[in-house]
């Protein structure tokens, strides 16, 4: 048997709906090694939560086996399992009087005796978690008084208090703003390196996952059948799977920046030459052009240049300067106007 922390072979996930068995995924194989950070992605309804619940032993698998450190999950006593595997769930904790400190201490449950008395060793571990996740400022606050970002950190802290080797997280970043998302991902990354803890987390934030995860698992549903892929981010990009699964409804994936672009439906021909601009300005101007629906075409009658001597943008038609402006802001305004001029024609074409 392999020595991976958490693994599953030929796993079928699903749930019991009345007397019917609803199969979500079949033949899933996964091995999580120590210290790995793995993102679990997939469109809504692809079965991410079901897989996480099955892997954590909270839900029975329809078929196949889950192993925890080489032992069959079902055969592992619940307390022993709790010392190896922890979960962070989406369910809301709404208890009025639950203090953050008490909440964290619940993570020591598998280690304490019948009375729940915390030994000096338990306190030491809790202090370490509080220190590492910088929770010191709010251990005395109530759980209901935390912001979304703080709460997520506390939830992870409670999981770490279990001293697990592997943590499964269900959408830990879903209610966070971008800086907090990045902060949280950085935290998971750091914990996986420093403590050797493995994380498997479900998320909708592919771009961020591609940048931090060691591996990415993609779940998908195609014609009612579940498919999945698992590999390092770069290999997934190379194989074009990401575009396959996620590029729907005008979304385009740019493999060079590992980011998504929105494809504009109306295309206005424009020729541009921005060599004299610096790198950032060029990129920003091109971003604006793409957003406003302009497409680079050599044979276009309208063209845009940046004049280095005059430090101004120039819009020319058949060699004649039509409009010029000094700043990017002004240019965007002019281009916006132009795209409106084009628009009636393009809608006519679309309708035709």
């Amino acid at each position, binding site marked *: 048997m392999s020595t991976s922390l958490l693994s599953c072979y030929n796993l079928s996930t699903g749930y019991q709906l009345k007397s019917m068995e609803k199969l979500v995924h079949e033949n899933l194989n996964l091995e999580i090694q120590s210290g790995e950070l793995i993102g679990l992605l997939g469109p809504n309804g692809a079965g991410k939560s079901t897989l996480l619940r099955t892997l954590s032993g909270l839900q029975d698998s329809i078929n196949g086996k889950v192993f925890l450190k080489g032992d069959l999950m079902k055969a592992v006593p619940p307390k022993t399992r709790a010392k190896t595997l922890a979960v962070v769930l989406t369910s809301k904790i709404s208890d*009025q009087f639950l203090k953050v400190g008490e909440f964290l201490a619940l993570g020591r*449950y598998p280690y304490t005796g019948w*009375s729940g008395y915390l030994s000096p060793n338990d306190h030491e571990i809790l202090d370490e978690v509080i220190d590492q996740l910088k929770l010191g400022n709010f251990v005395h606050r109530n759980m209901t008084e935390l912001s979304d970002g703080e709460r997520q950190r506390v939830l992870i802290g409670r999981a770490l208090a279990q001293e697990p080797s592997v943590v499964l997280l269900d959408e830990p970043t879903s209610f966070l703003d971008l800086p907090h998302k990045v902060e949280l991902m950085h935290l998971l990354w750091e914990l996986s390196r420093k403590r050797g803890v493995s994380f498997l987390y479900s998320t909708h934030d592919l771009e961020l996952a591609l940048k931090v995860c060691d591996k990415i698992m993609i779940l998908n549903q195609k014609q009612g059948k579940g498919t999945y892929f698992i590999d390092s981010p770069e290999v997934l990009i190379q194989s074009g799977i990401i575009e396959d699964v996620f590029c729907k409804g005008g979304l385009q994936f740019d493999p060079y920046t590992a980011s998504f672009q929105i494809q504009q439906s109306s295309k206005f021909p424009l020729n541009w030459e921005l060599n004299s601009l610096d790198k950032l300005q060029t990129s920003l101007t091109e971003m604006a052009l793409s957003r406003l629906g302009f497409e680079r075409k050599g044979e276009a009658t309208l063209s845009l240049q940046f004049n280095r001597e005059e430090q101004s943008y120039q819009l020319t038609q058949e060699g004649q300067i039509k409009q010029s402006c000094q700043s990017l802001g002004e240019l965007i305004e002019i281009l916006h106007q132009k795209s409106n001029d084009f628009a009636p024609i393009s809608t006519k074409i679309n309708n035709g």
Partner: protein
Amino acid sequence: MKLIQLLLLCCALLLIFAVNLSLGSVSIPFLEVPSYLWEGISSNEQSAFATILYEYRLPKALTAMLCGVALSQGGLYMQSLFQNPLAGPYVLGISSGASLGVALAILFATGLKEFFYSAFGLSLASYHLQLGGAILGSSLLLALILHFSHRIRSNTALLILGLMIGYVAGSLVSILAYFGSQQELQSFLHWSFGSFDRVPWERLPTIAIPIILCTLGSLFFLKSLNTLCLGESYAASLGVSVQRTRQFLLLSTSVLAGTVTAFCGPVAFIGIAVPHLTRILFQTQDHRILVPACSVLGACLCLISDTLSQLPGSSQTLPLNAITSLIGAPLIVWILLRQQSTSQGVN
């Protein structure tokens, strides 16, 4: 800190206990209560006060305290299990189930007694039948609610269901009462008013033993109870046997509520109000504090209700149920309003 609070609460209980003993249709001087009590216990030739205290008021006060302990613990368990602050033996219809059992026991008392005597050679008293009926009725209702609770995820729907089942049980009781004889009806009506004075010394163990056993049993589940407030999934992930905890909580709630209801009638609102009050007073979710604190506070509240229902100084008594409702209902309204305002504050 919390332990000091608990200690203060125990002192308050002692005081209330003494006041309860001293007040009644005849008032016994407060400071002389201990000496009369001692006289009642030790000597055979008793004065009138000693007889009243020892034969009547002491068992009544003990019963009141036991009921307080039982009902508030049952309420706490239900609130932790359903994770709903509005759960409680009375609200979920468990008390109605017990009522139905008792109504059946009263109505078919003669038949049942004969049956048990001829089949098992047991000669049962009416109160045995009532106790059995109440516990059976309450556990049956609880099992029914639990069965639905697996299918209905929304707690509000579950509470409404509990109320509805309670109504059905209530109307069955009415139908039974309609067919009962005058005497049976009167005895049932008297029972349904609620009172703590129906447990003389010789019956006290019958009510005390189940309640003490449940309380002792709860010691083994304090830790699990604490994890339940995170939800069943988290509790299971921490290695808690949710199934076993659930079974214990349901069993002990039916026994607690059933025992109380059999002897004292359907006592309203103690079960729902006391756990709330305790949480607000102690500002904690730790069941290692909540269970003892709830028990003591429940005992206090029942003693106070009993003292009030005796209408000190007059020979009349009010139905106990009226008093607990008068205290309990405004309390719950206040809690609801308070919750509303705090949740708005958070949002």
